């Protein structure tokens, strides 16, 4: 039994090894080098010069950095709950077998596989302040027509709306999780007189909590990065930095202005912010919910 266990372990390691090596070489090592660059000034034309925390001090004094951090946090605050709720709602809606459900499930997933640039261009048209269908519809209903991407007050919201349409992966994960929930719990709940809401509140939700936590962690990381393509393609950070998010600013610092030190420092800030938020959410989730094995 022991020998079998060892070979099983060895087999797991053997299967994991290529991925581990790849991650180390293609992610870990570059990330480490980038973290080191954060403490240098480096334009890629001349050798890097160690400057200690100077990049961080300069970034802290730059109001655009503060704005970008604020924009990214607000975006996460709005987008992540909506994306998780959207995925959960769709999964619950499309859980039961019924006529055409496969088609609906595919339709829910389709926006996720649209290439990011194409997706951004579609929404650029949808939120066109004069000719876009959203404002044309609002106008036809006699409602106010916001400037959307042209107005600093409203420019962030189209990004949130867009992100809520790309929830295919979360939807699939939650659909699988829902289908795996033990039927007996719900039968027992029904015997005890639990209605649909009670069953959802006291059984489905706690049982799904580990999945929801996992999706939330993943979504926070993903959402931090997700803003890059739409902000790059649709607004370039305009109007007046209203859609300047951390990934776009990092890109501009590093690859547009060739200040790789500052760009790396911004990357490190993004990493630490993500870790802090995930840490906070972890503490929130830690003592809640239970697993199907309970």
């Amino acid at each position, binding site marked *: 039994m022991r020998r079998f266990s060892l070979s099983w372990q060895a087999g797991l390691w053997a299967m994991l090894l290529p991925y581990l090596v790849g991650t180390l070489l293609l992610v870990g090592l570059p990330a480490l080098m980038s973290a080191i660059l954060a403490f240098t000034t480096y*334009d*890629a*034309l*001349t050798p890097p010069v160690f400057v200690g925390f100077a990049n961080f001090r300069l970034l802290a004094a730059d109001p655009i950095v503060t704005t970008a951090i604020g924009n990214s946090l607000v975006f996460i605050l709005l987008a992540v709950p909506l994306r998780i709720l959207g995925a959960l709602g769709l999964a619950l809606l499309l859980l039961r077998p019924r006529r055409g459900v496969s088609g609906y499930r595919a339709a829910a997933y389709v926006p996720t596989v649209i290439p990011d640039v194409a997706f951004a261009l579609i929404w650029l048209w949808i939120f*066109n*302040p*004069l*000719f876009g269908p959203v404002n044309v519809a609002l106008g036809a209903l006699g409602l106010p027509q916001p*400037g959307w*991407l*042209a*107005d*600093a007050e409203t420019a962030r919201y189209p990004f949130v709306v867009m992100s809520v349409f790309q929830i295919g992966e979360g939807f699939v994960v939650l659909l699988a999780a829902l289908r795996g929930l033990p039927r007996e719990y719900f039968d027992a709940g029904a015997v005890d007189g639990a209605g649909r809401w009670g069953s959802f509140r006291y059984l489905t939700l706690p049982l799904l909590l580990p999945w929801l936590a996992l999706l939330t962690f993943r979504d926070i990381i993903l959402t931090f990065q997700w803003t890059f393509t739409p902000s790059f393609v649709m607004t370039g950070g*305009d*109007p*007046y*930095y209203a859609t300047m998010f951390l990934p776009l600013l990092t890109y501009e610092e590093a*690859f*547009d*202005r*060739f200040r790789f030190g500052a760009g790396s420092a911004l990357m490190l800030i993004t990493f630490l912010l993500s870790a802090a938020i995930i840490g906070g959410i972890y503490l929130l989730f830690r003592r809640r919910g239970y697993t199907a094995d309970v």
Partner: protein
Amino acid sequence: MRNPPSRLIRSLLAAALALVTLTGGVAAQADSGSVSFMVFGDPAELAAYRELVEAFEQEHPDIAVELIHIPSMSDYRLRLGADFAAGDPADVVLINYRRYAPFAKKGVLEPLAPYLRRSDVISDNDFFPVATDPFRWRGQLMCIPQNISSLVVYYNRGLFDAAGVAYPSDDWSWDEFLETALALTADPDGDGMTDQHGLGVDPSIFRLAPFIWQNGGELAVLESGLRPIRLALDSRAAREATEWFVALQTEHGVAPDALAEMAEGSESRFLNGRTAMFLNSRRGVPTARRIDGFEWDVAALPTGVQQAGILHSDAYCMAAATEDKDAAWAFIEFANSPVGQAIVARTGRTVPSLIEVASSEAFLDPGAAPANSGVWLDTLDTLRTVPVIAAWVDVEELTGDELRRAFYGQASVDEAIDAMITRTLPFFAGEES
């Protein structure tokens, strides 16, 4: 008696020797006779560069040119920076005079003055001095300018005719410019939304600069008359010009507001016949030549207290990392010869920097729009340049952000000017020009 095995060995040796000689020869030829050339531009420009390369290869059959084409100018700039950063740039690249300084400062460009001195095809005197001067870094010519364009007014003759407005004259004033723009701004369906704008302009410091100079102002404060130390937009003359420029949108509404500009850019509006005048350099000609719905032409910028225009110029630069510098220079020399410049000028994209070609039919073709191409040559004496400093790109970006706020009524001109000066101050520190 012949020994078959030794014959076989001799044959094999001979074949191997021939192979080594052949491959060695090919390698030597490839090493000494290949040039990579990176450009940007629309399909018409690409066709011209292909023609240029073919003509060069006919004249220099021993040198192969690899043409690398990046369609978008912004992508081109990113690629350029990334390639230099990677230490693997194309041998010959096109760079604007506002953007070559960081590369010159880092020593990644090969100074071309010594090559030009040795050339028996072209010389410094063949070029308009206003084109070559901005490409002198620390007194040495770094790149050979391809064109000598400047900002002009593109106008839709059909809209002028329909409104009964006279075409722009060579010496029209700011007031006449505004009156014309007002007369051509219209809301024919009366829904409160302007359907036709008199003017389209990118609210950037690069577009504003000639008006500041025309009003007697300066872009930058110079230390000891040479080194720029900060923006000079807070002078009375510069402030007045900025206020006038901003008021074109905020007060007079002749240019699209932020919403309208977001919905459809000014250049697109002009090309679609819904904007009467559009400020652009010669760069707009290849695209404008595809207009078939109306006739268009170009006119000089209006004149303020004095005449002033702004230079738009790209140059052929050689990367210092180029292995075969003689081959790269041969290509640059050919591209800037009368034959080479004429090929590119025929696309309409460039105002040739060679005096001889600028006055030739390759540029002043009476059969090709715009009819008034001569305006680019007539205003040469009034052209000025922005400060050539390594961080100018940063300055343009930041000032653009602030100027847009003022232009679209989201900040006062005073606020924008203060922010432009304050925010760009760090970029002038330690600069040379």
